[in-house]
């Protein structure tokens, strides 16, 4: 939850709400780019960002993105984040079943 994941901003999807499509480890996810917009909204397209719980929080360079993703994979956090994104998508569809509840 606290470790962000690097994603590349692909395109702006909502100019009013400052939302954009990001590609995170091969998965596309709509995120808010509000925290990283300092000039024209279009300028964030093509940038790499650290994405925390759906918000692009810091612009990083491509090398930093690759290194961070490596470390996250080793920690098992990359997979955890991608699963959380899938959980989020499932949550919008309706109540979900509990697996392995005690």
């Amino acid at each position: 939850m606290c470790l962000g994941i690097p994603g590349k901003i692909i395109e702006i999807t909502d100019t009013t709400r400052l939302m954009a499509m990001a590609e995170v480890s091969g998965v596309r996810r709509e995120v808010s780019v509000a925290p990283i917009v300092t000039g024209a909204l279009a300028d964030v397209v093509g940038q790499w960002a650290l994405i925390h719980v759906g918000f692009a929080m810091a612009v990083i360079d491509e090398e930093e993105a690759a290194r961070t993703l490596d470390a996250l994979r080793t920690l098992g956090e990359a997979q955890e984040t991608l699963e959380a994104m899938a959980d989020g998508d499932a949550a919008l569809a309706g109540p979900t079943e509990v697996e392995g509840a005690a």
Partner: protein
Amino acid sequence: MKFSTEFRDPDAAKALLGEIARLCDDMGRSADNPLHIMEICGGHTHSIFRFGLDKLIHAGVEFIHGPGCPVCVLPMSRVDECVELAENPDVIFTTFGDAMRVPGTQKSLLQAKAAGADIRMVYSPLDALELARRNPDRQVVFFGLGFETTTPSTALSIQQAAREGLENFTVFCNHITVPEPIKALLDDPYMVLDGFIGPGHVSMVIGIHPYDFIAQDYKKPIAVAGFEPLDLLQSVLMVLRQIAAGEARVENQYARVVPEHGNPVSMAAIADVYERRPSFEWRGLGEIDASGLRIREKYRAYDAEEKFNIGYAAGPRKTPEVEGCDCGKVMTGRIKPTACPQFGKGCTPETPLGALMVSSEGACAAYWQYGGARGVAAAE
């Protein structure tokens, strides 16, 4: 430790470890009188164990695991309040998955969900906003949890809800701040801390100046760090160099992500939406002054505590912690997880008694995952 495969740059890691060892020897530090360096952030704790840094590093450095795991410091009373909110048939309760297995007095959120409560794990508060838009006849409550890293996400979501005039979206705010518990630990006469590894992603939001008091008032060095193993080793070295030179400054090892003054948009959103509570309860640490945030009056319609008259809005409250659990002592670095009588016996990741065993960022879960069996054997 397989340097060649685990470390991106094994030679750099060896050089840093060598320099740390030389400084420790120079200062006469060994396993008998180590320097106590607290890594504040639970992500750092996880990384230290995953990469075995606690074993690779000179015995003159002992890592003390700090309170920087938001799931771990959540008191049972707050979990109980989550369950109460979630069991309201009008409510869709949304939460980060990390919080699902934290034990409450009676049950966890996972158990409440199994019993029929409409609890949904989401990735982002934006998912909860979307649920509110799609379910206008239901109340969508988002469990706002975390330090300054996640606080902007709920602040910006509340601002968005207000702009849209959404009437069925609220946040159950449990956001907490890093500097206040650190001050509480520094004021604790039983704590012996020689320096700090500062949290990277929290600092990305708030910058490095909120830690000035650590250096100026308490004369302790701190280096804000990234969470790759080389980042951590480098930041330990920065702290050691300061100690050796008799200095105390705030250094920024993670400047490639952490701006000196933080993220202005996030800081503005936090200031607009939140104010400090007089105090907030931490699991294991008790009430800490000004350590928690609440939603300001102007956004009251988005405050689940107000809307459902629960938590601090319902008056004074206190719940006991689990008996026999030494979470508090582990949290303050007084004992190692393996010294807790419940570690690996009553308390395992599958059946956690205390929250430190729940999250991968919790010290107990880290000990268990990366040496748990060894730790239990050693303790017996």
